[in-house]
């Protein structure tokens, strides 16, 4: 969906720069970072709909970053974008809770369609959660403060 917030994580600066521009051209709000640490910091600061994550990075690699993201317990969906060499790690990442994966090099259209799917998934999650919460509030109005300790985080 146009206007979705994307966090692009890849150690190749040229790649993130180009990809940001392509995604911006397609109506997304893109933040590009070049390391796992930076990605986690960004996620702590701001809300994103989809994270596009490279697996092979110096320092904190994609899998470690994914684990950190999971710890933050967000609605944000993660897409793995990897060199072909690490499909097995990509599958591991999916097992750890990433939404899907794509192999480099990929067509921008493929990436966009995956982002859309991920966004939908996130949207569904948010809606489900909200419905559940509304149900809970109806049943017990006092629980409203427990359910929303912060704005966009799951309980």
């Amino acid at each position, binding site marked *: 969906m146009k206007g979705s917030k994307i966090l692009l994580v890849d150690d*190749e600066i*040229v*790649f993130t720069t*180009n*990809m940001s*521009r*392509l995604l911006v*051209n397609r109506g997304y709000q893109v933040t590009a970072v070049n390391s796992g640490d930076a990605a986690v910091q960004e996620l702590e600061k701001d809300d994103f709909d989809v994270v596009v994550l490279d697996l*092979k990075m110096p320092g904190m690699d994609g899998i470690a970053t994914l684990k950190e993201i999971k710890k933050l317990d967000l609605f944000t969906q993660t897409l793995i974008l990897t*060199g*072909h*060499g*690490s*499909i*097995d790690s990509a*599958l591991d990442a*999916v*097992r750890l809770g990433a*939404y*899907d*994966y794509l*192999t*480099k*090099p*990929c*067509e*921008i259209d493929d990436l966009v369609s995956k982002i859309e799917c991920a966004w939908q998934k996130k949207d569904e999650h948010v809606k489900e959660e909200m419905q559940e919460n509304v149900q809970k509030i109806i049943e017990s109005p006092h629980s409203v403060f427990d359910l929303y300790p912060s704005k966009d985080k799951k309980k």
Partner: protein
Amino acid sequence: MNGHEIHTMTPDITLNPPEKNSYRYLFRRFTLLTVVCSIVPLLLVGWGLNIHYTYFAQTRIVNAFEEQVANHGRFIEQFLREQSTKLRLVADTHSKKDLRQPGSLMNIFETMNREQPYIMDLGVIDQLGNHLAYIGPYDLLDKVYFHEDWFKQVMQKGLYISDMFMGFRQEPHFIIAVLRREGDDQWILRATINTRVFRTLVENMRIGETGEVYLVNTQGVYQTTPRFGGSIMDQADVAVEPFKDPVSVEVFKKNNTSPFSGQVVGRYWLTHPEWMLVVKQARSETFEEMDRARFVNLVFLHLSALSILVAAIFITRYMVGIIRKRDDHAARLNNQLMQASKLASIGELSAGVAHEINNPVAIIMTERQLLLDQFQQTTIEDPAFKDQFLSSMDQIAVQSQRCKRITHNLLRFSRRTRSMIESIDLNRFVAEVVDLMERETKTSGIRLLTDLDPDLPAIQSDSSQLQQVFLNLITNAVDAHEGKPYGSIRISTRYDADARGIFLSIADTGTGIDSKHLDRIFDPFFTTKPVGKGTGLGLSICYSIIRQLKGNITVKSEPGEGTEFIIFLPLTLKEKENGESGQSGPDKTSDPSM
């Protein structure tokens, strides 16, 4: 198969099975060892026993022979003593007067000869040597013996047994004489022993076909006629030496210069008279039974040794055969191991290279996309530039995809990709592949023919991997027709119920593979294509995939005639692999662990 031009000469350290000669050496060593360990002890024991037996048997036979000789000697002595005793009895119980009476001597003669005609004649002689009375076949009454040797001896000794002599009758004979003293008067009773009867008596001994018995006196003169050569009273050609023991047996070996060569000789000294009894027999006859037993023993011994030798040779040959088979097997395994480790190490390398290439290619793709985005937002008047730009962009996309395919191949080769195992109808699969390739082959003038087994069961395998194998092999087959105006590629399938699998063959009519290259075609980076045409990975990938799918790939080629690749695929994979194919999302996975 396209792209790279790396020609890596991986050192071909194949463990060849040991040389043929070394097996021959092993065979010789084993045989020798067996022979030394079994035949030599057998022969030693056999020969030892044989020598011991020979010694034992020979001693016994010689002892028996000696006993026989001694007994016979004593028998002859006994006979002579008996005759002497009889004469002595007659002389002592009769007076000269009695014996001179007509008929008296005749009576005595007949009485003495009642059992056997031992005595030839009997005579009474006075002290002057005159014949007083005589009974016998010769006319000897008027003979005077005063000067005869025997007469002197008997006058001196009282009893005398003479050697053989001719005497007045001019025939070989010997006498026994006793002296009788009657007051002042002395007279002699003399008897001549029947030579024929005496000889029979002497020779009355079991001595076989080759034996002879005779007597010689101290001068070496025959006292009886020997059986072979010589006659009574002749000089025997043996030296007569007095010996200490009364009886002796000597065994003479053959080729001896002695007249007794090859004979067993027993000797016995008679005390009175001093005659030597000689008993001779051919050695071969004496020891006949012993020799036969020895011969049979040795024949059995050597037959046993021979049978052990034959058995040793057969067992050794069998064992060396087994060793050779094991060696071959080990060498094959080693070759496979080498191949596998080569593939593995190159796989590692490939995975890294592929990853490194994918990143720049991804950037190129994004750059292209950026340009395209920019291009769409820009108004460009020049249609020629527009066309060129778009076609260049397409070409960049095509070449990037090609790069992706190459890295994809490399990664497949490195087995990093996971396979998805599904049920495949190979016939339909082949038809699809043929469809895919037909356009390309037609332009090269090559016909694709299929010969498919209609009763082919479905197999459990990975279709995308198999597709890659077939495409590789068909591309190779097409390339093999380079320089030929036309040709054909025949793809056939056949179900083998015994092997529980399917044989798939791809045979082309191309240029074939040089036999010196046949061993290496599955090696990674081995290619005969010109630089820049082939990576040398195609067949290596095929090999790796087919092995991964528990199958087997073999090649037959005739240079100039064509090449046939035969792939065996099992109906099911024994060890189920976790199935997952490259591009599928998590919702499509068939991996049970996920």
